[in-house]
């Protein structure tokens, strides 16, 4: 009963009127997600390589980076890159600050996921590659990394989905992506429930599409898996 009364008060014409703005925001959300995924994977791969290397300094650095970022909120990092760095005379545009913050945070989680993947590859694989005369670098690139990536992909995928959802936090420092665009419309029209319901649906559908893509990638990668 309450739900029916509540639903009767919704007026979605406000969403219809703002569709061009929301579509532009959605494009930015996808663009930031794509850039964030590239950044997070880069941080994750470099960090995991350091984390499993023979150098003690590299291991310590990568571990400290991963543990610190994983245990601190992404929103604080977004504020840090946007509001705090200007104190050190480094001024970044909102999109750059937000994307770097998310790439570092989600990348730190990716380091741990990829490290676990590398360690899950049986030692015999590396030994066999070594016996065939492959250099340590070749062993990693041709034998260990492809298998580690396949093992890591399900957990890595959840991390990338989290990144998509976390792009909404960038609205706190600018209005360019979809959540920020919606907040801007709400500030003018003073009507919010319809927009937040629309945003919820937008993110749900986007998460669904991204996870479908990830499942497709998983299936492709495990074609030749034993």
């Amino acid at each position, binding site marked *: 009963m309450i739900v029916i009364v509540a639903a009767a008060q919704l007026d979605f014409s406000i969403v219809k009127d703002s569709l061009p703005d929301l579509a532009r925001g959605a494009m930015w959300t996808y663009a930031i997600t794509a850039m964030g995924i590239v950044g997070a994977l880069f941080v994750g791969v470099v960090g995991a390589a350091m984390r499993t290397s023979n150098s003690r300094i590299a291991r310590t650095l990568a571990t400290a980076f991963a543990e610190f970022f994983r245990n601190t909120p992404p929103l604080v990092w977004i504020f840090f890159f946007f509001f705090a760095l200007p104190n050190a005379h480094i001024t970044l545009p909102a999109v750059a600050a937000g994307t770097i913050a998310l790439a570092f945070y989600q990348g730190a989680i990716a380091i741990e996921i990829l490290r676990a993947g590398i360690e899950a590859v049986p030692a015999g694989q590396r030994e066999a590659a070594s016996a065939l005369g492959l250099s340590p670098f070749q062993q990693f690139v041709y034998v260990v990394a492809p298998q580690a990536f396949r093992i890591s992909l399900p957990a890595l995928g959840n991390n990338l989905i989290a990144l998509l959802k976390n792009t*909404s936090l960038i609205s706190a420092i600018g209005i360019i992506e979809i959540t920020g665009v919606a907040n801007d419309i709400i500030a003018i029209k003073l009507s*919010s*429930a319809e927009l937040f319901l629309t945003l919820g649906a937008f993110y749900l559908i986007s998460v669904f599409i991204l996870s479908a893509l990830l499942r497709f990638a998983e299936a492709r990668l495990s074609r030749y898996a034993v």
Partner: protein
Amino acid sequence: MSDFWPALRDVIVYGLPNTIIMSVAAMAIAVGGGFVLGVLRALRNKVLDALVIAYVEILRGIPVLILMFFVFFGLPQLGFNAVGNLQSAIIALGLWGAANGAEIVRGAIFSIDKGQTEAGLALGLNWLTVMTTIVLPQASRRMIPPFMSLFTAVVETSSLAALIPVRDVLESVRIKTESEPSLWMPLLIAVLFIYFFINYPISLASQRLEKRLA
């Protein structure tokens, strides 16, 4: 820079209690709600399964920020009584936490050998007694590490409440920097360490415990 220590004192005195209250209250909802939803899944009723799965997928598929905005700004517009900033943040964090808690409880219950339930039922115990005295006590131990990492996620996510705004540690920093922008860097570094010192011991303990239980 001489303003730093008094400013940090205010962040800790006024901000930290709200961060802790939100995290603990939301976690209580997450554990309670998670148990109810997780046990409902164990009933293996198709209708209940569909309802719980829909709840879990929706709450985990939308950003917590959207949920928090909807609870705080959207619900009063739909005729619900307006609730305060802190309560709205706790409700949103709790609903989201309960969705994650449901998955933790379900996973732990289904990880217990089916023979345990069958043996209990064969002894003539009813389903609820089997669940509460045989399955859940064993499953609860396996839930501890994932619930600990959920708590660290709740602590981190409570920072979003600064945007509606609740005066948590992050919002306290923003208030302080309105008159003194040069405090952004030192205060945010301090806030990062506050979160780190709460979360790191818990996530470390969670990893250790997980290895021991495995």
